[in-house]
């Protein structure tokens, strides 16, 4: 009897189909969040915690002071080698050859209220930042909980969070884990010793598997660049060898609090539009357009609805799919004012230079803040700064520091709009060398910052800015503006150098003409001196002409 191949039936397939939680998904795809290798995992963990601390401090109007500490775990304990189970019951393995490290980040921020702690650290896609359009470092509410998830997956250790919301309120400490299947926190109170001193702010401690590396795309470079873009913050970093690096603040001025804005109709996709209509509290579609979007006046709302062929009094919740389609089209057909841009908080030209000065020793600094512009309905603003000369390496490609909402981007430089704009700018116009299609070569640090209510990253790990035409154009304009100034400086110092070199030529080579003529023509010493004197005045005369 021939054995028939066994295929599954629809019922059998249905038995195997089940919901995948976000937590499970990211447990399997941790590279999407920036945990693809042990070295990067350390950086991502620190970065997520520091970004949150800076956001919280600024929102509360506190000058940030952040302590980062990475300590190696001396010996692996047998019991801790426990591996958590993923959705399919298979063991999730850590990285081979990686060390076990304790990452601790402490801020002087507003703290977190007790009830929120488990959700913030123990649930993915939970946060305040996704649903609003406001310039901030975090966007999706995925970062710190992803770090906690990574910690749990690689070491089996839960995150420890200590927080105190004010001098008078009681500090509390939690150990928070994540239930992968439910994407829900598993939290328990942890004791705080009676005599333990807990200052205001939040301290996050995570035990992770990773490898600390010095320089390059590493924690020290990240903190150095963060200090450039955040001259109002102070950072203290203790590395696994116990070395302490401090980045003092160069400015006591907090960035102005960023305003929240409503989305601009041009920036909203159809699906989002449908969701917004479902969630709105407005009772007419016209009211919905006016209140839930920016730059939609009653007149404009009417115009949109006219284009869409929908009557103004319709309840948004009753709008059908095809009507939503027409509404979307109607928006595109209506001319609307650009979104407001006062919601952006650029670093500022002076602060950028201050930040650069304290981290890079150069002889010339310049910066520019471009006027705001809009891509896909999202306002954004580009800033650039250059440091030139001094102790910067003269024979290497320029160092490019990329920032998005004050956060340094260390990975995926090739995919980023900033790198593309740097390579596409012709630096030769500014007296700098540049191989075709590459950044310039010379003692140069290039800083580009993009501030926006929504930075278009190419991935969840927030490593590269997508190359929208408007963004590329603005970056290039900013670089050109700074480049021109550096060009003038380079020219000036080159001329001064030439002058000095030519001057030294007189002293160096004229005597040799005298000696040679003396030897050939048997001149006396005084005749030789006279000849050299004449030559000097002849040369000086020719130069002035």
């Amino acid at each position, binding site marked *: 009897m021939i054995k028939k191949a066994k295929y599954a039936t629809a019922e059998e397939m249905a038995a195997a189909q089940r919901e995948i939680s976000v937590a499970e998904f990211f447990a399997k795809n941790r590279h999407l969040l920036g945990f693809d290798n042990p070295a990067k995992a350390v950086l991502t963990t620190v970065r997520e915690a520091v970004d949150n601390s800076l956001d919280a401090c600024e929102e509360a109007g506190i000058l940030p002071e952040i302590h980062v500490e990475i300590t190696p775990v001396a010996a692996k304990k047998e019991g801790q080698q426990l591996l958590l189970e993923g959705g399919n019951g298979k063991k999730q393995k850590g990285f081979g050859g990686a060390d076990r490290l304790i990452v601790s980040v402490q801020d002087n921020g507003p703290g977190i209220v007790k009830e929120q702690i488990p959700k913030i650290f123990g649930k993915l896609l939970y946060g305040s930042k996704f649903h609003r359009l406001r310039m901030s470092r975090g966007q999706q509410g995925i970062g710190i909980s992803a770090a906690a998830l990574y910690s749990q997956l690689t070491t089996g250790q839960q995150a420890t969070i200590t927080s105190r919301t004010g001098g008078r309120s009681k500090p509390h400490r939690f150990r928070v884990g994540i239930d992968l299947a439910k994407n829900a926190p598993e939290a328990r109170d942890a004791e705080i010793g009676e005599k333990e001193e807990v200052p205001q702010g939040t301290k996050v401690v995570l035990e992770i598997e990773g490898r600390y590396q010095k320089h390059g795309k590493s924690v020290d470079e990240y903190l150095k660049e963060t200090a450039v873009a955040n001259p109002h913050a102070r950072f203290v970093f203790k590395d696994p060898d116990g070395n302490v690096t401090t980045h003092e603040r160069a400015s006591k001025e907090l960035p102005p609090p960023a305003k929240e804005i409503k989305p601009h109709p041009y920036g909203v996709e159809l699906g989002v539009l449908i969701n917004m209509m479902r969630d709105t509290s407005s009772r007419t579609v016209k009211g919905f357009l006016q209140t839930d979007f920016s730059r939609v006046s009653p007149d404009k709302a009417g115009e949109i609805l006219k284009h869409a062929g929908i009557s103004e009094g319709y309840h948004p919740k009753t709008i059908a799919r095809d009507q939503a389609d027409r509404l979307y089209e109607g928006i595109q057909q209506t001319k609307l004012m650009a979104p407001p841009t006062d919601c952006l908080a650029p670093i500022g030209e002076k602060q950028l230079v201050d930040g650069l000065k304290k981290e890079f020793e150069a002889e010339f600094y310049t910066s520019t803040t471009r006027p705001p512009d809009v891509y896909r309905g999202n306002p954004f603003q580009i800033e650039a700064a250059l440091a030139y000369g001094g102790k910067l390496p003269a024979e290497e490609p320029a160092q490019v520091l990329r920032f998005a909402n004050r956060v340094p981007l260390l990975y995926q430089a090739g995919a980023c709009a900033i790198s593309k704009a740097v390579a596409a700018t012709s630096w030769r116009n500014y007296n700098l060398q540049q191989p075709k299609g590459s950044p310039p070569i010379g003692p140069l640090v290039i800083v580009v910052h993009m501030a926006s209510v929504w930075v278009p990253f190419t991935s969840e790990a927030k490593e590269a800015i997508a190359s929208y035409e408007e963004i590329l154009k603005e970056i290039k304009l900013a670089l050109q503006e700074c480049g021109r100034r550096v060009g003038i400086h380079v020219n000036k110092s080159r001329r001064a150098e030439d002058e000095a070199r*030519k001057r030294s*030529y*007189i002293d*160096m*080579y*004229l005597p*040799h*003409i005298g*000696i*040679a*003529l003396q*030897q*050939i*023509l048997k*001149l006396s010493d005084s005749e030789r001196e006279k*000849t050299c004197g*004449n*030559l000097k*005045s*002849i*040369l000086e005369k*020719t*130069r002035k002409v």
Partner: protein
Amino acid sequence: MAAKKKQEKVTRHKGMDLRDGLVIDQITDVAGAIHGVIGKRGSPQLDFPARTLANVIYDEKEGYFEIGKQKVERTLTYNTVKTFAQTLRFMALSKELVERNDFATKRDAYYQSKNWGEAKFDEQPESDAVMDDVEALFSTYNVSREELRFYPEEHGGAVAGQLVVMDTDRDGAELEIDCTKFGSGSYAIPRSVEHLRFKTDAKFILAIETGGIFERLNYHKYWQKANCILIELGGVPTRATRRFIRRLSEHRGGKPIPVYAFTDCDPYAFANIYRTLKVGSGNAAHISRFFCVPHATFLGVTPQDILDHKLMDATHKLLDVDVKRAKDALKNDPFFQMQPKWQKAVKQQLSMGVRAEQQAFAKWDLNYVMDKYLPAKLKNPKSFLP
């Protein structure tokens, strides 16, 4: 008038070769002119013949490459002050060498500059370039590099046969060198040949490309039988070899001793060895008129010889580089363009697609070249390629 003035000057250099006195006069004149301009507070300048191919002319009447009239003026400015000083210091060195009756090779001169403090050369190519400048500068006064006492590193080829070379040593003693008396060895052409004199009644000079054939003809005393002088070129002849052949062939005045070139049959021998011997090299056109033998003719081996002496089975295929060189000569070399007979010969070789070496005659007999080939060719020197 000018000649009389020179005559007067020469008397000041007592106990010195007449020619050496003229060289010192030339150096002093150039330096004196510069000194004069500086004294009048003018910008001193040096004029060099432009050393570009565009400034090279093939002088049909004289039969060699000649430098054109274009000049490059180097005025003293901030940018030229270093090379200007170095050029003058080399001139001073040259004068000193003539006075001391000494010489310096390029390498010697480079090391001399290490004594000049800031004006020294860091690498030898820099000093070679300035020396080329000095040579070009004085070539316009008919003074050669050897006369400036800057000698090439490489010596000339080997000489054997019916010739007595008269040389003087440093102490002024006359030496008579009989080139028949080197046994199985030979006389080596010195680096500078300007001071040599000759005694010979040889009927011709045979300039041979390869050591193998030179050795065979010398070993069997071919020079005695044919009453000639044998000179080994050893590839493209050096400056000293070319100058030696030139001076030797013309030393009697009047009709020069015939010079016959005997090389392999391939484009390199035609376009590089023979062409350089006869008309000089393109990139040194400013000195070609000293370093060429315009009346030389080409005895063989010609492509036709391969057929006449049935050597087809002793040939090698032309390589791509050979073909390229041959085509290049036909297309770009002014010498070949002027010589229809050569064009015919090169085209014949290209169509045969083979090359032959001088030693290919050994196919018939080791001494076939001496007993058969050369006597047959020498019966009719008018048939030699120009």
